[in-house]
């Protein structure tokens, strides 16, 4: 009996000990700096799979076995802690904020690494740097934020897109567009106008080969990896952000003549209204008194075309965000309405976007969905960035100052005076008065008001991902993305207007649509492995990726519009073979695919030495079979010098890391889908269909390969108050597509062959200094600068060749201007003089001539349009709740062709167009010492029109104030509130005399300039 009881007791004891194996551990996590609880912190037992996430109040609770040794507490932006588990079940943990660069997470191609173990050159930009900037397009907001990343903004029109160039041009014929990846799937640069940049949590710009080689054939121009905002566990937080402002015109520097000045110029040049009504015009049949009267009337009219075509644009933005969730499921959603009017009549952008991101964790499984839907509607001006009289930015300066667009009844009088079934537009007869102009401005104004150019874009992206941890550190992952975009461009010209009558088929306007539909499917799956033991830490990925992209285009244009049914296809008249209004129809379908195998291994020893190797084997449908598959590799190394014994005790030095990497990538986005095939296409002989050769074909079609070496240093010191990153790199691209000019006897003008080589060498630096850093007051100065030297090193069997107004020649940078040198004016005759060129040295030999010959006199001594030096600098000051930050951007060392001055400073077209005031200084027999040639002498393209366009622009000034918590708490409804004011493009300092020195190509052709914007906003969180 006793023995039975004893054994029972023993059993119970053992049993109870066994039960006592599991315990519940609870606690709170707070921020050491201010004691505030931190939600969303991951707390887990070392070695176990599961874990807990802290709630809104910072508390957590998790199950642990009795032999659990350590708790690991980690959160982005804070130093991770490992604390031993004692007999206590409750823990109060305070995390130290990690303000220095060490804590930054770099998203580098399919993985994330911390900056300590990062071997590549990557710039990380956070949401706070780009949120709420009143430029709807994401790429323009990046200007000046990262060294080596240049935004090329071809237009300031809202709804249009800007391109990015990273570390100079890698391609001679193709583009420099990098690859954009959002949540793992590639996105087209042209769709950023329909997406909301406030949704982006972090943006990593990958610049060197070890990061971009993971993107294989598409990483050659750099990669911009964007991660969208995710939910944070805790009570649901709702935020509302409203912002409103105004877009203002910038000052133009053209200095145009007024009516009396232009009349005097025309009188001097003996052409135009100034001469027709001049007292000196003895051959005139108009009596002298009448001439004087008309001339006097004209000189008193000074139409302000600026006010007619332009306006101050209004801007407003509303955004509602909600985020929250439990430890298992978290969500983030946002809804944004964006409305911006441009500074030119008719241009605007309206955009609605929605996003829903959900993350779910349960045990070993992590699921996520990131979805967004956007719809944008933009209206554009006519003939943007074109030398066309319909372009309001051209008409505004070219129109004569005495041209008054409105007739006595308030209607616009255009140059069209035929009836064509409608009332005449210009009932001027000699009884009514004199028409002394060509109605240039009126025609453009009428066209702007009586036609539309709209783009309607729907964009939807859905990405689903899952990660399943099979085994200690080994995970199975999959990422599936679907990206759909539909763009409808609607072009409508109203009948009965000046533009409508000019429509050649039917003279009654036109209505047409251009529809583009693109569907992109991406699937990336594979295994990832991450483990650390002892002194070793290893990360490895093995993935398989497949991408398929389908594009279909369709367009139609109908004529004979019914004036009661505008802007709809219902108004189109059916075409017959006698009414010449047969509608035009066209379209195309195309697709491409990629299949890839990706491998990455990253090994760190003793937290000091990291080595990384990647290999990606890409196959693409864009190449002929023999060149279809290619492998892209990279190796990189990172030496965390601070961890070394001789430095680890240093107090001044906080971080010192040396990185180096080398690898190969390509730029597949520059290939056309089936460019390698020789083909015949459909042609029409006035309605009878025939076939004719369309492309000559190239069986050796291959990728453009880029090999790059990058060495970088990260340094932080003085208590992390001084942070410096520098990179030095050299990139060689070979197999560049060059347009080999063919003899026209072949039937083709050019053929794309892979033969060129181009090299970029450069230095980048990013410096950030906290000049003063106290609890209440922080003053930071930051600056970044990049210098890139671009040189074309080989053009294969092709000779040099012209590309627009530039020349592609070995030894010169890609954007070298090529034109005849202007040598001033011959004081004896007033003829313009040009430099003669020695055909052997291809440089001017000092002598001049007045005969213009572009073929023999053009040289490349006029600089380049791709700026070698660029960067930004600024400062930010934080005092209690106030925050002031400002950013300047600068571009140095480039020049552009000012095509605007070809018309506005013209010795032959002063009778037709208004001129700049400097033309008053034209050569006359009494005014011989001048740079402006004699009126009537021929006007050709020369270096007279090339101007230095280097500029410094005050990009942004933001002042914000966080309402003090005490006042917020009184409202009982809000949890935080912030007021902010922003100014964008406040001022520009430049010698460039055109509209806007910020451009994406070599020539300035009346492009829509970037506006100045001032706005005010309020952000509240509930």
């Amino acid at each position: 009996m006793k023995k039975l009881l004893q054994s029972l007791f023993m059993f119970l004891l053992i049993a109870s000990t066994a039960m006592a194996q599991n315990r519940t551990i609870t606690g709170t996590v707070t921020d050491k700096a201010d004691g505030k609880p931190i939600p969303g912190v991951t707390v887990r037992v070392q070695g176990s799979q599961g874990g807990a996430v802290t709630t809104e109040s910072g508390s957590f609770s998790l199950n642990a076995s009795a032999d659990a040794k350590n708790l690991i507490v980690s959160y982005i932006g804070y130093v991770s802690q490992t604390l031993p588990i004692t007999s206590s079940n409750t823990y109060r943990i305070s995390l130290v904020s990690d303000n220095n660069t060490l804590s930054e997470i770099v998203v580098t191609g399919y993985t994330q690494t911390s900056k300590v173990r990062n071997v590549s050159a990557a710039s990380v930009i956070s949401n706070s740097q780009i949120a709420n900037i009143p430029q709807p397009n994401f790429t323009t907001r990046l200007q000046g934020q990262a060294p080596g990343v240049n935004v090329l903004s071809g237009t300031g029109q809202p709804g249009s897109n800007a391109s990015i160039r990273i570390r100079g041009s890698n391609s001679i014929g193709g583009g420099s567009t990098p690859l954009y990846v959002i949540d793992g799937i590639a996105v087209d640069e042209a769709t950023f106008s329909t997406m909301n940049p406030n949704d982006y949590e972090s943006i990593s710009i990958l610049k060197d080969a070890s990061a971009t080689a993971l993107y294989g054939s598409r990483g050659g121009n750099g990669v911009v990896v964007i991660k969208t905002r995710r939910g944070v566990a805790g009570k649901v937080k709702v935020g509302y952000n409203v912002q409103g402002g105004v877009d203002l015109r910038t000052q133009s520097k053209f200095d145009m003549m007024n009516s009396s000045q232009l009349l005097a110029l025309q009188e001097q040049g003996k052409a135009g209204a100034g001469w027709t009504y001049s007292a000196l015009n003895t051959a005139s049949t108009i009596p002298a008194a009448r001439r004087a009267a008309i001339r006097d009337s004209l000189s008193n009219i000074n139409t302000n075309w600026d006010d007619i075509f332009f306006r101050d644009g209004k801007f407003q933005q509303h955004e509602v965000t909600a985020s929250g969730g439990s430890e298992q499921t978290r969500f983030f959603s946002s809804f944004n309405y964006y409305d911006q009017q441009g500074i030119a009549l008719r241009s605007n952008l309206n955009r609605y976007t929605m996003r829903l991101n959900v993350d779910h964790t349960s045990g070993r499984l992590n699921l996520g969905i990131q979805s967004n839907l956007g719809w944008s509607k933009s209206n554009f001006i006519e003939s943007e960035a074109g030398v066309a009289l319909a372009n309001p930015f051209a008409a505004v300066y070219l129109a004569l100052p005495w041209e008054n667009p409105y007739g006595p009844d308030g209607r616009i009088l255009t140059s069209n005076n035929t009836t064509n079934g409608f009332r005449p537009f210009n009932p001027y007869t000699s009884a009514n008065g004199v028409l002394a102009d060509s109605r240039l401005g009126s025609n453009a104004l009428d066209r702007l008001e009586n036609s539309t150019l709209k783009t309607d874009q729907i964009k939807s992206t859905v990405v689903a991902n899952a990660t399943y941890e099979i085994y200690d550190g080994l995970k199975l992952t999959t990422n599936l993305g679907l990206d759909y975009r539909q763009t409808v461009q609607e072009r409508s010209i109203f009948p009965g207007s000046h533009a409508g009558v000019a429509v050649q088929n039917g003279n009654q306007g036109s209505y047409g649509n251009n529809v583009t539909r693109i569907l992109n499917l991406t699937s990336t799956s594979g295994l990832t492995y991450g483990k650390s033991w002892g002194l070793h830490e290893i990360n490895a990925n093995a993935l398989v990726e497949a991408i398929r992209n389908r594009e279909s285009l369709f367009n139609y244009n109908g004529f004979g519009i019914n004036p009661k049914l505008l802007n709809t296809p219902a108004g189109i008249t059916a075409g017959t073979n006698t009414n010449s209004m047969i509608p035009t129809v066209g379209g195309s379908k195309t697709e491409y695919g990629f299949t890839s195998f990706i491998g990455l291994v990253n090994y760190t020893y003793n937290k000091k030495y990291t080595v990384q190797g990647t290999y990606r084997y890409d196959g693409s449908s864009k190449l002929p079979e023999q060149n279809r598959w290619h492998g892209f590799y990279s190796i990189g190394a990172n030496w965390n010098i601070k961890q070394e014994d001789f430095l680890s005790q240093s107090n001044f030095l906080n971080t010192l890391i040396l990185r180096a990497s080398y690898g190969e990538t390509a730029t597949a986005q520059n290939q056309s889908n089936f460019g390698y095939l020789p083909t015949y296409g459909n042609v029409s002989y006035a309605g009878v269909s025939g076939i004719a050769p369309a492309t000559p074909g190239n069986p050796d079609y291959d990728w453009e390969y880029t090999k790059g070496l990058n060495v970088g240093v990260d340094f932080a010191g003085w208590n992390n108050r001084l942070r410096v990153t520098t990179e030095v790199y050299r990139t060689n691209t070979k197999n560049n597509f060059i347009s080999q000019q063919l003899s026209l006897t072949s039937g083709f003008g050019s053929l794309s062959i892979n033969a060129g080589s181009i090299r970029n060498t450069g230095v980048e630096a990013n410096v950030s200094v906290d000049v003063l850093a106290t609890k209440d007051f922080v003053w930071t100065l930051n600056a970044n600068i990049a210098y890139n030297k671009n040189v074309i090193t080989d053009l294969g069997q092709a000779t040099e060749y012209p590309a627009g107004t530039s020349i592609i020649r070995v030894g010169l940078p890609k954007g070298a201007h090529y034109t005849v040198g202007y040598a001033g004016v011959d004081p004896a005759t007033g003829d313009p003089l040009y430099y003669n060129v020695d055909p052997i040295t291809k440089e001017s030999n000092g002598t001049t001539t007045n005969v213009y010959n572009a073929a023999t006199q053009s040289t490349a001594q006029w600089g380049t349009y791709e700026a070698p030096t660029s960067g930004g600098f600024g400062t930010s000051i934080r005092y209690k709740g106030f925050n002031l930050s400002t950013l300047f951007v600068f571009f140095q060392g480039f020049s552009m062709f000012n095509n605007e001055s070809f018309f506005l400073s013209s010795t032959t077209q002063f009778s037709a167009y208004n001129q700049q005031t400097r033309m008053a200084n034209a050569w006359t027999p009494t005014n011989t010492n001048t740079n402006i040639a004699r009126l009537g002498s021929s006007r050709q393209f020369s270096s007279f029109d090339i101007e230095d366009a280097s500029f410094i622009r005050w990009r942004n000034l933001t002042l914000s104030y966080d309402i003090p918590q005490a006042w917020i708490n009184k409202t009982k409804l809000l949890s935080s509130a912030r007021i902010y004011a922003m100014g964008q493009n406040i001022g520009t300092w430049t010698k460039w005399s055109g509209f806007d020195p910020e451009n994406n190509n070599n020539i300035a052709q009346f492009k829509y300039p970037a506006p100045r914007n001032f706005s005010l906003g309020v952000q509240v969180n509930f």
Partner: protein
Amino acid sequence: MKNINKIVGLMLLTSIVLTSCEKNIDLKPTDTISNETAIQSLDDLDRATIGAYSNLQYQQAFYANTIMADEARWGIDNLSRNFGLAYRWDFDSGSGDVTAAWGTMYNVIDRVNRALASAENIPANSTADVATKNRLRGELLAIRAMAHAELLRWFAPRYENDQLGVVIMLQTSILGKPQRSTFAQVMGQVNADFAQADALIPASFTDIFRITKPAVAALRARAALYAKDWTNAVTYANAAIAAKGTLATGADYAGIWTDANTSENYFQLRRNSNTGSVRTYWTDDNTDVFFSPSYKLIDSYNAVTDVRYNAFIFKDGTVAASRESWKVNKYSGQSTTNRFNNVKVIRTSEMYLILAEANAELNQLGTGATALNAVRKARITGYVDQTFATKDALIDAVMLERYKELAFEGHRFFDLRRRQLPVVRDDRDITIGAAVPKTLATTNRNYILPIPLAEKFANPEIQQNPGY
């Protein structure tokens, strides 16, 4: 929980299966025809021939010839946007307006050469098929001959046998950098191609939108005239007139210019769209007049008796005094809505004029005068036949008649160059527009048209015309 795992497992499996498919990247284009399969049947050959016709931009000759000569005057409404440099004889080899024909014609020749090469392998068994294949080959050869002849008209510095000609292309060569042959060599090839075409095209083929047997004879006559081969010019012109030789008179003549009447047309290029029609080179759709008929041309006609005056020239009384009222009426459209016309490449009256000039050169003044009188009689009511005492008098009369008959049809500038005569404009014609020069001397650089700058860049060894 289990279900979720199953779903995830399935997702992963499917994605891996999808991704390993090589089919993902083995794609073919849907919108283009591959070279190997493009021309395999007679139907395909016909389409390839139509492809060649579709790019015969013969109207390029119209405006270059008119603007560079004395047929047209700058219109008051022309804001120096169009052809200013060509009009003022101030262009260099970079000017696209005067050099575009080089690229267009060689593109047509390349289409012909590829079609001819593929034609070798096309099976033709029945007699009907053999006849069709021969006709198509004949048309292709005629197109090639016409294109080479056009190139000579444009770019040979002088129309003499020992002068520089153009490049002869008889097969496709994408990367070639050929040299120019002599004028005589090119003419030899032109004549050989025309001779073969004449043999292959049956007389029963009568579609004037394509090249027929009479058209071949007519084009041969024109080529012989430029080669100064007077005997052959007479032979071919007679052959063409024998096939189709009635000159239109009175109202019928005006009908040629509205496309209502095709009795004089040997060969015309079909057009069906207002976009890019010949009319827009003279007058814009918004009624701005770029070029008007010159006063010199207007005065050359008798406004009352000459049917050509109203057919070619229109004085618009409805426009404001400050705008241009003289308008070119030739090629002004088929109707008020169809404001385009078919491009007439060669007509019967040109044959008579060739006869007149060639006979004059052969000292057959009587025969020559008969031909000239025939044209004048058809155009001028109450015309009395004229006789000519000397060869020079007849030739001057023929040149004047060509000026009046073939105005705005792409002949004037090349005719003056054939005869090495300077272009002299009337004083009244140079007052409008900035700095218009009056005379283009035969020694002036711009009297000869340059090879395009793009050709010289791609093919540096090619001989450029003198002065450029």
